């Protein structure tokens, strides 16, 4: 039986639709999916250093992001994806928020931010109604992960409370539970001190004395005598220093009245990355980074690396460049980021913080890795560091 003219028409339409679908499919297969990530940073002002040993690094973070893009693309060549890092480096007298609103907003799905808390909150606000995910690779502020939290920001660097908890766990293991807290006069130093106090309370450590370093004299010339006088106080086990910019902390060790170790922002520090770290394949990335830059990988480089790798990992697994889909995968059960720390890294759903082990490092030796054995948690020991779900005051769901 011959098909009627109507039937024939339908068949042709079907065929046409089929051909179009076929065409679309082949076009997709031939073209690469391009995932572009904006990297936004502002040039840093060089601070007066206490020691001239460490050269000032003006691009902390950037080479980490570049290394991660290379790694993403090595994977991408096998999955038909191409990753591009678009760099926005705002001069130190420029306005990063303006650059964001003019050049990044509405143009990119993914932003790696190296901005300060104030600027980060501004860009997150602007991006809130857009399909955009912000990965913060620069701040350590606890309030950004609590009362000031935003649903479109994920935080890569460990918060101050995570660092303080890591130090406290190791001090508990050593039973050095009487602390003398020395705080610098900058607002950030106070924030670190608050995290230290919180950790002390959490782990049953006693802060026997607390003093503020006033900078009322030239520390370079008088550190020897002044530190000795300054540190005469109650009996204590360790001196905990809160000096984030490194204005005086390095001068405390070996100059205290009592022979006591220094921990905190100097001496034994808790950090996401350190040049002494070699375990779990870390040697490989340390070498690759040094080959690329000729310098050691800093914590910010590591954070930018992880941020770009996290986007890469989620985009590869989902085969998507859609901000929501990528974010959903990142916050999902299956997401496991390899960060050279021996355990898979993932994001906390309640505050968007990347859960990760912290390195407890002295300048030339890795002392321990927190969480310290024996600090238990029903879900993952990594959540013994920082604000756990019941403690979090972040009321916005990240998903």
């Amino acid at each position, binding site marked *: 039986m011959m098909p009627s003219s109507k039937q024939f028409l339908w068949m042709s339409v079907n065929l046409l639709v089929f051909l179009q679908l076929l065409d679309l499919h082949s076009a997709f297969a031939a073209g690469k999916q391009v995932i572009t990530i904006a990297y936004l940073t502002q040039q840093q002002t060089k601070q007066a250093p206490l020691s001239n040993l460490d050269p000032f690094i003006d691009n902390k973070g950037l080479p980490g992001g570049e290394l991660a893009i290379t790694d993403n693309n*090595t*994977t991408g060549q*096998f999955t038909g994806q191409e990753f591009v890092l678009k760099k926005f480096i705002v001069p130190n007298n420029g306005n990063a928020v303006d650059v964001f609103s003019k050049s990044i907003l509405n143009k990119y799905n993914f932003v790696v931010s190296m901005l300060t808390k104030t600027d980060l909150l501004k860009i997150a606000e602007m991006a809130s109604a857009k399909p955009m995910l912000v990965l913060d690779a620069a701040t350590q502020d606890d309030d950004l992960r609590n009362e000031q939290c935003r649903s479109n920001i994920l935080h890569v660097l460990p918060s101050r409370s995570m660092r303080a908890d890591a130090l406290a766990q190791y001090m508990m293991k050593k039973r050095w539970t009487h602390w003398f807290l020395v705080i610098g006069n900058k607002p950030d130093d106070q924030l670190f001190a608050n995290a230290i106090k919180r950790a002390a309370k959490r782990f049953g450590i006693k802060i026997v004395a607390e003093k503020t370093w006033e900078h009322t004299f030239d520390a370079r010339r008088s550190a020897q005598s002044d530190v000795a006088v300054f540190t005469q106080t109650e009996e204590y086990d360790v001196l905990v220093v809160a000096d984030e910019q490194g204005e005086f902390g390095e001068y405390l060790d070996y100059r205290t009245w009592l022979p006591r170790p220094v921990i905190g922002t100097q001496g034994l520090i808790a950090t996401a990355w350190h040049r002494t770290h070699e375990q779990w*394949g870390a040697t*490989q990335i340390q070498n690759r980074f040094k080959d690329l830059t000729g310098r050691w990988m800093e914590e910010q480089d590591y954070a930018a690396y992880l941020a770009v790798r996290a986007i890469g*990992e989620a985009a590869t697994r989902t085969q998507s460049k859609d901000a929501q889909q990528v974010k959903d995968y990142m916050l999902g059960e299956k997401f*496991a980021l*390899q960060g050279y720390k*021996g355990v898979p890294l993932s994001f906390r759903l309640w505050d968007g913080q990347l859960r990760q082990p912290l390195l407890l490092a002295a300048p030339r030796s890795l002392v321990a890795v927190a969480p310290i054995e024996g600090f238990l948690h029903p879900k993952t020991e990594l959540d013994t560091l920082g604000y756990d779900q019941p403690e979090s005051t972040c009321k916005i769901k990240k998903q």
Partner: protein
Amino acid sequence: MNKYNLILLLAVLSTVTRAETVFVTLEKDNALAVVDPIAGQLIKTINVGQRPRGIAISPDNKKLFIATSDDNTIKVFDAETLKELTKLPSGDDPETFALNPKADRLYVSNEDDSMVTVLDIAKKKAIKQIKVGVEPEGIAVSPDNHWVISASETTNMLHWIDIKSGTIVENTLVDPRPRAVNFTMDSQQAWATSEMAGTLTILDTQSKKIIKTIHFAIPGVTNDTIQPVGIAIDNKRQRGYVALGPANRVAVINAQTYEVESYLLVGQRVWNLAFSPDQKRLYTTNGVSNDISIIDLESQKVTKSIAVGTYPWGVAVKP
């Protein structure tokens, strides 16, 4: 010769033929431990070079290949006399490698360069370099000599290299940080462990598709510490064994149903595995407790542990 002497002689001969030698590379001691597993004794330790890790024995059991990572070479030893015969140009920092069935080619993972290097053993020359994913680690040649699989730790992929053409024909995305890969004796399946995800992926060689992903879970052990590494599958494909790293256990898997039958407690940070030639025993290297464990496979019990030296890494067995 009287009858009793003859029996005695035969008895002695049969013991001699049954005795096997286990070789263990000691990463921190820069040495090779030589162990008599039947007697349960460390016979001797010999220096082999800086930071020895990967180890393999040739199919005729005459040559021993050892990657001495910090010497940037793979050394070849006489498996009987343990004299060094030659050095192969492996590229920088060799860790793992695989020998083809004819033992004329060696496939080496170059972790820092994202490459697989193909070495002609007789000519002592690199004949090809194949670009793979970031930080290639586990590598295996199929027993039928058709495929090489290279696992890249950071790219999270298995790269299927066709031996004839020397090119990658397929890439399979697996769970995070694939470490080790191994083929079944019939070459029909490839098994790969993912350290970060705590999983084992079983793939079909023909289709290169994933047949099954096995998630390891041990009561009382947190998931973070279950980090699967070395794989051994028996020749009849009845059971497979997976070393679970800092979980200090070897998982026993039914290779037909893919059920995990049990977890056997061995030494600390169990890393690599090797069968005895008759496949009645399994030897494990335990990196942190500095020993090897012997598992009797008939009773499925750990029967012995033998202290061998610091950071035991790889293991190979000579009949």
